[in-house]
């Protein structure tokens, strides 16, 4: 560090020597004569000044002493780079002006000596300048000239001197650099651009009457995501709404249905039976079936009425029976005397057929009607909209092509003479018991959830020991509850296994055979173990089900012993997916190589 300082000072010394030689040519001798001003006490007048370039800014005979503020520049100041020239104000400085509002003798820069200047013989201060260390400084010179009449006349000149010293100080004292730039005045011409520039985000930026984005009107039919339109009797166009859960679980009635977007939603609404049962339109089937759809977006689109394809009546116990709908039959909700509201729409399913041009061909609705009871009740409704292309079959849904996709239900069926028969309904597929509020295995309608590929699940119910007295009856009931009403025999090994190829279907192995003996052994758990493997290429392996096994555990000891005196036993229903894929093998025999490789990221940034 010390060496560096030495070196720097050496260099500086040499530099000064060169500078001194140069400056002898044009240096002015008097830089700062005033002793009152000379608080920076330099030993030599010439050493620190490299060269002086004089620029006469103004040379006037003084007439007034008023100082004007520096004018604001019209152009904005530069953000970076060289500093602008500082404002020179040396003409306002006067070191010999000792008396305010009175003229000091021989003080040429004193603004009060307007008349007395004529009597001066010499100036006590001839040069006033800024500090010598500044790179650019102003110098005000005062001199006297004798006029013909013998009086003196003051000559004032202000020069700007540039100091080329290596260590000079750049001063910056412009007032306009210390304040915000003057704002651009908005006029009717530049208002829009100013508005765009300064108003990025604000309330009310979205206009409230937003139209749907204008589509290309080339095709008369709907496009994906378009809102389906309806026609009223009055001819007023409307929108086909399908209630859905919005930001809460409550039903939002004004949510439109989008073309080709299959929707399924479950939402709840609070119903006060006394007032709402017959008057709330959301409970009535008519409000879902009395809809006239427009088959296209155009003004002259044809009207497609929504047909009622089926009406199912759900009893209070949960059993369902189909109603034959006669013409003119009143299916509106009605408040029964027992405080029950009958024929309330619980589930509404629309099936809308469209053709290749995107026009709605026909629309059908099936409704489930049911009962609700209680003075104020939270009613859950289910809404569904499915779009089917005209000529296509309704929803023979596959679960993968070819391998199963995680999250899709397993395809299952039963064996018939022609091959495998499979129900299109999801509830007939291989399913698990779904827990209910009742919790009792032998009572009430049981909900079931389909077995989804790759999703392990467990659920269950409880068996009360009081009910287990009649062993053989309970055994059969429990088996039915655990297996479900339509227990299939076969499961497709691929997500798209054709029904006529029986070899593509895997039978469900079961080792359970009910034994009739003295000790009552009941099934306490049903576990489905599904083994699957990856099939095909390494790049895009397909999931294939290899085997499916049903494991039913029965009790070996007596039931009261198992329950520990609790009076009830848990019964479990579960499914597990076990991957049994073998490690991938190379398809051909390769010659052995020496495996002496560098780690994979050894040359990381290069390759």
């Amino acid at each position, binding site marked *: 560090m010390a060496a560096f300082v030495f070196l720097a000072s050496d260099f500086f010394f040499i530099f000064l020597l060169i500078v001194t030689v140069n400056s002898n040519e044009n240096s002015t001798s008097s830089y700062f004569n005033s002793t009152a001003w000379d608080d920076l006490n330099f030993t030599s007048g010439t050493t620190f000044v490299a060269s002086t370039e004089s620029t006469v800014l103004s040379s006037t005979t003084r007439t007034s002493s008023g100082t004007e503020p520096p004018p604001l520049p019209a152009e904005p100041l530069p953000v970076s780079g060289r500093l602008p020239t500082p404002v020179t104000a040396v003409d306002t400085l006067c070191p010999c002006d000792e008396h305010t509002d009175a003229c000091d003798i021989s003080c040429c820069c004193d603004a009060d000596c307007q008349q007395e200047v004529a009597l001066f013989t010499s100036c006590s201060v001839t040069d006033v300048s800024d500090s010598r260390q500044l790179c650019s400084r102003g110098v005000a010179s005062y001199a006297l000239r004798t006029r013909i009449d013998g009086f003196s006349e003051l000559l004032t000149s202000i020069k700007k001197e540039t100091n080329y010293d290596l260590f000079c100080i750049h001063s910056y004292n412009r007032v306009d650099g210390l304040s915000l730039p003057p704002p651009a005045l908005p006029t009717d011409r530049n208002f829009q651009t100013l508005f765009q520039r300064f108003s990025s*985000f604000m309330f009310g930026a979205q206009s409230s009457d937003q139209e749907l984005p204008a589509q290309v009107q080339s095709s008369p039919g709907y496009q994906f995501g378009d809102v389906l339109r309806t026609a009223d009797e009055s001819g007023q166009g409307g929108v086909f709404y399908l209630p859905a*859960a919005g*930001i*809460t679980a409550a039903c*939002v009635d004004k949510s439109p249905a989008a073309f080709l977007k299959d929707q399924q939603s479950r939402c709840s609404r609070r119903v006060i039976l006394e007032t709402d049962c017959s008057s709330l339109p959301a409970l009535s089937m008519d409000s879902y079936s009395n809809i006239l759809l427009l088959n296209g977006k155009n003004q002259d689109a044809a009207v497609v009425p929504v047909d009622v394809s089926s009406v199912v009546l759900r009893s209070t116990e949960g059993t369902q029976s189909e109603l034959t709908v006669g013409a003119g039959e009143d299916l509106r909700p009605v408040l029964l005397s027992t405080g029950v509201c009958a024929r309330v729409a619980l589930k509404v399913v629309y099936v809308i057929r469209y053709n290749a041009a995107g026009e709605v061909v026909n629309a059908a609705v099936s409704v489930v009607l049911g009962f609700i009871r209680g003075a104020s009740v939270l009613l859950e409704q289910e809404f569904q909209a499915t779009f089917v292309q005209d000529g296509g079959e309704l929803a023979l849904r596959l679960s993968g092509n070819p391998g199963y996709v995680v999250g899709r239900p397993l395809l299952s069926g039963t064996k018939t003479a022609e091959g495998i028969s499979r129900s299109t309904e999801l509830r007939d597929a291989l399913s698990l018991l779904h827990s209910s509020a009742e919790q009792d295995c032998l009572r009430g309608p049981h909900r079931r959830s389909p077995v989804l590929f790759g999703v392990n699940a467990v659920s269950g119910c409880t068996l009360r020991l009081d009910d287990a007295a009649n062993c053989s009856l309970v055994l059969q009931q429990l088996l039915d509850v655990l297996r479900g009403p339509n227990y299939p025999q076969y499961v497709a090994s691929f997500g798209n296994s054709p029904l006529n190829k029986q070899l593509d279907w895997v039978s469900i192995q079961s080792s359970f055979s009910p034994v009739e003996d003295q000790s009552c052994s009941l099934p306490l758990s049903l576990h489905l173990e599904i083994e699957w493997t990856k099939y095909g290429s390494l790049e895009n392996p397909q999931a294939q089900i290899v085997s499916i096994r049903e494991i039913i555990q029965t009790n070996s000891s007596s039931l009261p012993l198992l329950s520990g005196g609790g009076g009830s036993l848990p019964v479990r229903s579960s499914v597990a997916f076990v991957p049994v894929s073998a490690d991938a093998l190379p398809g051909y025999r390769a010659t052995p190589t020496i495996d002496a490789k560098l780690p994979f990221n050894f040359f990381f940034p290069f390759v």
Partner: protein
Amino acid sequence: MAFYEVYSHPAVIRYKTSVCTKATLFLVVVLCLTYIPPLLVAYRSQGFWLKRSTYEEQPVVRFQYQTLMVAATGTQGDYVAWSTFPHLNNMLGPNLRIPAVSVKEEDLNKDGKLDLLTFQLQLPLKNNEQVYSVQLLLTFSYQLFRMSTVVMQSLAFVQLASPVPGAKLFISGDLRLQQRTPLPHRGLYNIYNVSVIDGSSPFASAYDLENIVRSYQARNLTTVLSCPMPVWTVGPAAGSPFELNVEIRYPVEVITYRPGFWETIKFAWIQYVSILLIFIWVFERVQRFVFQNQVLTTVSIPVGKPHLS
């Protein structure tokens, strides 16, 4: 008369040999052992290639003036809601309750970047209504400039439920950046410059909070409102509006990024050379021993022998 060292200087002794000798072979082996093992040592001791690094920056955050507010006004599932999205407001029907909202964004340290958002919402209540829970969603425009230019739209979500009705909720928190993967070290990163909520959609599913949060949390770069201490002022707000005061600060973030090529090389070079110096020193001593003691035969040319050949 004691002697002292006036001056010293090293003397060079040259050892010469021809190409096909043991000494040449030795030299090649020593060179390989000097320069390659430091690379292996540096690599095997982990951290040779710099994979991620961090920097600090205060983001440029602007409140986008998009708001969604849901308040439960009863224990039976009654609610009121309001948003700045006209389609949603139309859908809400009787549940729409328009509050009085005031927003200001401040630059506290006058550095040109906003530091604090103050959001005040006064929700008018009917006489039989009390607020049990509040969900509030605000969207922000979030920008970073120092390394890569990041432009994204993000959200802050506040959710608080209480078994007792409240008169006020005060929330003061930081809008923190959450990264799942490091950012690139340069370039424009604007894949998340998309609306968090599709305000032009007429469908109810577009405003479902579950859908919004699910798609938002799937992103690699999100912001989250970290508010460890929300203040729920218990008290009946009979007649008077429910007050929701939110202060969100935009703090300086430590951002992880993937260093560029030259930064990676620089740190690798530092590690390599520092280990190499030790190897050079060791093998220098080995070579000196071998040649000085003539373990391998070479022709040595001592100092001061003038004008050989």
